[in-house]
């Protein structure tokens, strides 16, 4: 999904001087393209005329934060997941069209009532140290995540499994009460507490990847270090010099197709956002990290960099969350929230304030996830906004009490909050007080808002996997109320609860779309922008793309090929 630029394959010959500019123009014209040479052009990189580099040069140099570890049970953020999903195979993954694709599982079946899942593993798979990969490895790994001793942040991702919640909460000490069982070395059976149409999506996430029991038992928490780490993925961990460099190499024992790329060298720093761009320009890296709003204008104007830009969709939304029950806050009134929403210029925020690094979000659930609405249910613009504000009791903003908008320190939130304050002052004549907080301070305040009243804050949610179970259900179901909006709508609750177990995709879609309409009319959270990833990639790197949700990062490095420069 690269956007800004794509050169034609022969463009690299031109830049190396192998062909003249005239030849270049001719070749381009032959293709019937109207695009001007050197300016922004067409689609995906085509694995093209350029010859593949020899295996010794099949190396990708990539920036990353220092990862914490590669233990599937407790991995939780991008630096770990991106690498971890190259080191382990989940049972299955999902392609861009949303179809389940077998990985370590050859096939699977679901019982009629949707409660029992049986996975059949591929025979003959090996761990990177030669141990056979068995269903017992998955059983061990899954039970380990819910073991309270592991203290995994993601234990709740296993709660749909019968017995997992009870074991994790310490109601029983017997791990065999968790209904995951390897019935033989290649068959894994799982029973759910209730039907969950999204269970396969969960299985495709990193926490459901297997763990080498013998290494864990031998080395304890040190099993994740290079030398001790054993995986069953396409790559394996070769070297990890903390905070300096981490190297993964193609795993010779991998069951599946061998990757073209032989090594990925990760340069580890604690701020790749700021340090990766200069290193990329000095040719120390093949890919940058997220390009920041402060750099993007320069990058777009730069004749070389502008051609190396790629933008990928990232499934997520930044929103302004409101306390819908706080009587002191005008935001507890639906009409006020609707007025703020309608007076917000989404295009201006995404394209001018954030310089187009993110996309406008007229609705909450992002594209690619069931429930996404292509058109928002609320319309009418600024005029309707003023009218709604008057109906709420604040004509022309008169008598509008002080509203405090908090957010955790982040460049994009800083820019957005100031723009919103300005926008609402200009259109609705109301004043919002801004409160920027340090991350951990914000987090502590956020956790207190489960009980304490507040006005509003900006934060975002990024999909672990692209399914409404990861959106409507965990974020806005009034029993979950992840973001403490305290919003309660009986019809919404009933729709999303039915939807999460609904096996018929068409019915499921309809339920979630109806729920999304309610959500985007009542607006306990006001959507601002959809997330995205904008990075620069060297022209000799082919096939690199970042799928829109972390669970789909499986296979990211397997697709990459390095061509001759």
């Amino acid at each position, binding site marked *: 999904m690269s956007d800004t630029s794509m050169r034609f394959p022969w463009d690299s010959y031109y830049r190396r001087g192998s062909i003249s500019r005239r030849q270049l123009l001719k070749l381009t014209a032959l293709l019937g393209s109207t695009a001007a040479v050197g300016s922004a052009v067409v689609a995906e990189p085509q694995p093209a005329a350029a010859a593949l580099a020899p295996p010794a040069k099949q190396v990708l140099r990539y920036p990353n934060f220092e990862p*914490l*570890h590669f*233990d599937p049970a*407790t991995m*939780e*953020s991008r630096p770990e997941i991106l690498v971890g999903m190259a080191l382990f195979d989940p049972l299955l993954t999902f392609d861009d069209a949303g179809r389940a694709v077998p990985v370590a599982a050859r096939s699977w079946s679901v019982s009629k009532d949707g409660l029992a899942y049986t996975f059949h593993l591929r025979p003959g798979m090996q761990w990177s140290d030669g141990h056979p990969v068995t269903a017992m490895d998955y059983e061990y790994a899954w039970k380990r995540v819910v073991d*309270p*001793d592991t*203290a*995994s*942040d993601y*234990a*709740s991702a296993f709660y749909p499994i019968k017995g997992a919640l009870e074991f*994790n*909460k*310490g109601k029983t000490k017997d791990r065999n009460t968790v209904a995951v069982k390897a019935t033989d070395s290649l068959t894994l059976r799982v029973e759910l507490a209730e039907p969950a149409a999204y269970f396969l999506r969960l299985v495709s996430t990193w926490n459901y990847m297997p763990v080498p029991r013998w290494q864990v038992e031998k080395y304890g*928490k*040190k099993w*994740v*270090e290079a030398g001790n780490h054993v995986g069953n993925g396409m790559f394996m961990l070769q070297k990890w010099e*903390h*905070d*300096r460099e981490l190297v993964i190499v193609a795993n010779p024992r991998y069951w599946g197709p061998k990757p073209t790329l032989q090594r990925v060298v990760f*340069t*580890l*720093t*604690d*701020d790749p956002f*700021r*340090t990766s761009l*200069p*290193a990329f*320009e*000095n*040719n*120390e890296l093949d890919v940058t990290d997220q390009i920041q709003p402060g750099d993007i204008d320069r990058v777009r104007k730069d004749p070389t960099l502008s051609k190396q830009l790629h933008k990928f969709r990232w499934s997520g939304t930044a929103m302004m969350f409101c306390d819908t029950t706080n009587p002191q806050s005008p935001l507890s009134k639906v009409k006020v929230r609707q007025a703020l929403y309608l007076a917000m210029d989404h295009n201006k925020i995404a394209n001018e304030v954030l310089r187009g690094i993110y996309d406008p979000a007229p609705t909450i659930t992002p594209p690619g996830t069931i429930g996404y609405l292509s058109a928002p249910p609320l319309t009418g613009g600024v005029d309707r906004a003023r009218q709604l504000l008057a109906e709420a009791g604040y004509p022309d903003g008169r008598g509008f009490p002080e509203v405090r908008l908090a957010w*955790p320190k982040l460049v994009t939130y800083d820019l957005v909050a100031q723009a919103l304050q300005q926008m609402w002052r200009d259109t609705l004549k109301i004043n919002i007080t801004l409160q920027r907080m*340090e*991350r*951990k*301070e*914000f*987090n*502590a*305040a*956020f*956790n207190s808002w489960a009980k304490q009243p507040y006005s509003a804050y900006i*934060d*975002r*949610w*990024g999909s672990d996997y692209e399914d409404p179970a990861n959106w409507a259900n965990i974020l806005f179901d009034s029993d979950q109320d*992840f973001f403490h909006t305290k919003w309660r709508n009986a019809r919404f609750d009933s729709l999303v609860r039915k939807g999460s177990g609904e096996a018929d995709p068409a019915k499921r879609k309809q339920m979630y779309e109806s729920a999304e309409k309610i959500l985007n009319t009542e607006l306990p959270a006001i959507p601002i922008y959809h997330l995205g990833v904008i990075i620069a990639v060297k022209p000799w790197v082919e096939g690199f793309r970042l799928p829109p949700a972390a669970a789909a990062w499986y296979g990211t490095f397997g697709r990459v090929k390095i061509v001759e420069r």
Partner: protein
Amino acid sequence: MGAYLVRRLLLAIPTMATVYTVAFLLVHATPGGPWDNAEKPLAPQVIENLRVKYHLNEPLWAQYILYLRDAVHGSLGPSYVNTARDVSEIIADFFPVSIQLGLVAMAFAVVLGIPLGTLAAVYRNTPVDYLSMGIVVTGISIPNYVVATILVTVLAVVLHWLPTGGWGGVLDVRVIIPAVAIGLRPATTLARYLRASLLEVLGQDYIRTARAKGLARRAVILRHALRNALIPIATVSGILVADVVTGSFFVETVTRVPGIGRYFVTATTGRDYPVLLALALLFSVVIITMNIVVDLSYAVLDPQVRYG
């Protein structure tokens, strides 16, 4: 001298205890804890499991004693953020890097600062003095992370002479940018102090005597004046060394050096209590040590100083 040293070391104990107590209280008084995540907040049960695992469910005074007991026994505990690693391992990884970088920076500071200060004093109120002091004022005014950014942009991104960052030890070219960035300010401090001190010494009678004896100007300055002018420099250097070896967050971040200064800030924003406490203790050890070293160096440099 031995008795003096013992007394100084004993005095360090209450200092360390104070540092520990203040650091402990500050760390726990800062809003937010190690598991206050908002992007992926943890289930209450999970937080409870973690708190039990790391004794955070105990009363504060018990935590105070527990950590102190472990620290005295040499165990600094696991990092809360990076649970796979122990604090002592983290320090063993990062601190030597900052020490090495700091020493290279200090060497640069001496090589630049001493000649600058000497020239400024010897050629007082001439263009040489103005130029030296101009460099000094510029060096003091520009924060080191700006120097680092400028050096990275010019030497790496534009000229492609050096890599933008990383670490390969003191003999690797990647040390140049961070060492210059960190060393510039100490260099200017040394130059300023040396100029003042050298001017004072040059006005002394024994200098006039030396010149009257017919000694060469060069010998007077290098052998008689400079040697005596260096005594205040030793004091300043001690503090400067303690400062540079504990690392610089900004420079280490901009130039991707895996040093302790950067880790200190990461630990603060992550509320990594054991790491923060350990680093507070470590830094106070460094500063106390450097102070003692400076005091002892007087005895060597200045025959008038005696410790009994």
